[in-house]
């Protein structure tokens, strides 16, 4: 009875490790100036997207903001394609044209990677609209941060989703800071989840450092949406260990706060749960971690050896040819 769930959880722990080791490697490569532009790390938040992906179907639509490396990896985009994108290479998941903030992977139903805060929330509503229009039972998972909830487009999107009863879950990854501005300094409401009430959208608050809680809570919500299309809202409380981006020393928060969350690390927590239940040995964990580190390191080699997008194709992505048949 417990067998499939056990396997899944170990697999998901392995995925969380891959995300963490990938981003540690990306951070190192950024400092070595192999990666340009902005680079926003997800380290500390891994349980959120992994819990969500474990709760959803692989063909459910997923769309997110600019802190998107983990969302692609969780969906099944290879570490090679993710690292190559950071290097701006043709083998990247957006062929080197998107960069860190614009990961896309049609095959794995990853619809970006969107870098204007809040602007992709209406797009997520559009994905859900398409599901309903076509009478499909896909659910849209629309991720955004606590910084997005004060943008006008966010409110318009919630209202439209409620009005049209669209199958979408708005996943607010509340990591307490919009860049350097804390939630208390940005948001008049004390509880973010109350934003949903204004649109008669059911809301839930979930501990984002606990993989099992994220997965179980979202599974229940997604199941409900699939049976009867409607929007739902989940405020998932989490924390990023690193700054907003690579250039941010995060001096706006205290060492004590960071330490408190580090002690509650989502990977450590799931590992402890599995170990306690004798579903995972230390050897197994070490092996998985070693594997994650090797995959991340190999992705750097892959990215380095990959070709640049060809200059002669510069104009090939502005328009597509043709029309509907």
């Amino acid at each position, binding site marked *: 009875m417990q067998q499939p769930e056990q396997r899944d959880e170990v697999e998901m722990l392995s995925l969380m490790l891959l995300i963490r080791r990938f981003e540690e490697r990306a951070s190192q490569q950024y400092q070595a100036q192999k990666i340009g532009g902005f680079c926003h790390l997800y380290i500390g938040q891994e349980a959120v997207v992994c819990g969500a992906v474990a709760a959803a179907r692989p063909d459910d639509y997923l769309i997110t903001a600019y802190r998107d490396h983990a969302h692609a990896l969780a969906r099944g985009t290879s570490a090679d394609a993710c690292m190559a994108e950071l290097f701006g290479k043709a083998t990247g998941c957006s062929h080197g044209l998107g960069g860190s903030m614009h990961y896309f992977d049609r095959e794995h139903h990853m619809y970006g990677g969107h870098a204007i805060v809040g602007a992709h929330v*209406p797009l997520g509503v*559009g994905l859900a*609209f398409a599901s309903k229009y076509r009478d499909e039972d896909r659910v849209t998972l629309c991720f955004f941060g606590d910084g997005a909830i004060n943008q006008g487009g966010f409110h*318009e999107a919630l209202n*439209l989703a409620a009005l049209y009863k669209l199958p979408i879950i708005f996943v607010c990854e509340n990591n307490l800071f919009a860049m350097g501005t804390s939630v208390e300094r940005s948001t008049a409401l004390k509880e973010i989840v109350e934003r949903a009430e204004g649109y008669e959208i059911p809301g839930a608050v979930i501990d984002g450092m606990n993989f099992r809680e994220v997965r179980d809570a979202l599974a229940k919500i997604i199941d409900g949406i699939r049976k009867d299309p409607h929007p739902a809202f989940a405020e998932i409380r989490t924390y990023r260990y690193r700054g907003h981006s690579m250039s941010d020393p995060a001096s706006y928060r205290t060492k004590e706060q960071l330490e408190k969350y580090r002690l509650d690390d989502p990977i450590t927590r799931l590992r402890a749960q599995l170990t306690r239940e004798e579903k995972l040995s230390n050897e197994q964990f070490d092996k998985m971690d070693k594997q994650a580190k090797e995959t991340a390191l190999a992705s750097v080699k892959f990215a380095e050896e990959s070709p640049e997008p060809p200059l002669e194709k510069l104009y090939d992505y502005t328009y597509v040819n*043709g029309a509907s048949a």
Partner: protein
Amino acid sequence: MREITYRQALNEALAEELARDPDVFLMGEEVAEYNGAYKVSQGLLERFGPRRIIDTPISENGFAGLGIGAAMVGLRPIIEFMTFSFSLVAFDQVVNNAPNMLTMSGGQFNIPITFRGPNGPAHQLGATHSHATECLFANIPGLKICTPATPRDAKGLLKTAIRDNNPVLVLEVELLYSSKGLVEEEDVDLLIPLGEAEVKREGGDVTIICYAQTVPLALATAERLEEEEEISAEVLDLRSIKPLDLEAILKSVSKTHRVVIVEQDRPFCGVGAEVSYRIQKEMFDGLDAPILRVAQEDVPMPYNERLEKAVLPSAEKLIAAVKKVCYT
């Protein structure tokens, strides 16, 4: 051919494309139950039902974005802006999301969406409701822009826009909705390619380049020029701003050697600035006079009727410019 209004032509284009392709839907403020703020979508709700003709709240950013998201997975939305002055509220969606997606995704996601509605000054609507947005959007790679001035062009261009696999803006003219013109019979699948200008009047002395609401102005003025000044003006309707039909422009100018551009937008970085740059770059030696432009005055649109008239291109301004390039 039969005579129908510009409004009816647009309505037919919408109905034909909705009937042809189940992935096409129309969304916007007042498009369904109200039958359209300008009655362009008259009868469509009744014929196609609320699944495909969808009223929205006043949330341009929200429903423009919704359309783009739906287009990512292959639907073909027609998003109506009650006026393109309101598209400015959705500027980020139209400028940042629709045209960038194909590049940002390395070619994985094209956005087959049509944004349509009236654009440009109408009559005494004041500064906020009188924007001619074509020059703002023309600066953005990834967008296509057409500006029909006749019922025939309205029908043919809108149908082509809906079938195009890229984001296309169909900038209509409020003041022309009730104007009439000849259009092919209903059983003809009228498609006019984007990026093809049309000579609306042949002439030999000067080329008047125009689009949208300056087309009827140019045509009427050309008649006056013929009668009053014995100047034979060729009237070239761009029909599409992007892609721009440079070939047709150069062909006409190589015949007349004199150009006046009459445009409905503002002069600074306006459409005419780009067109005149292209002409002088390609055929500087073929010009007998500097290219002149007649655009709006560079001020926010005043409400007062007399002042509004002073801001807009007029027959008098156009005649003066033509006479100047003809040295008469």
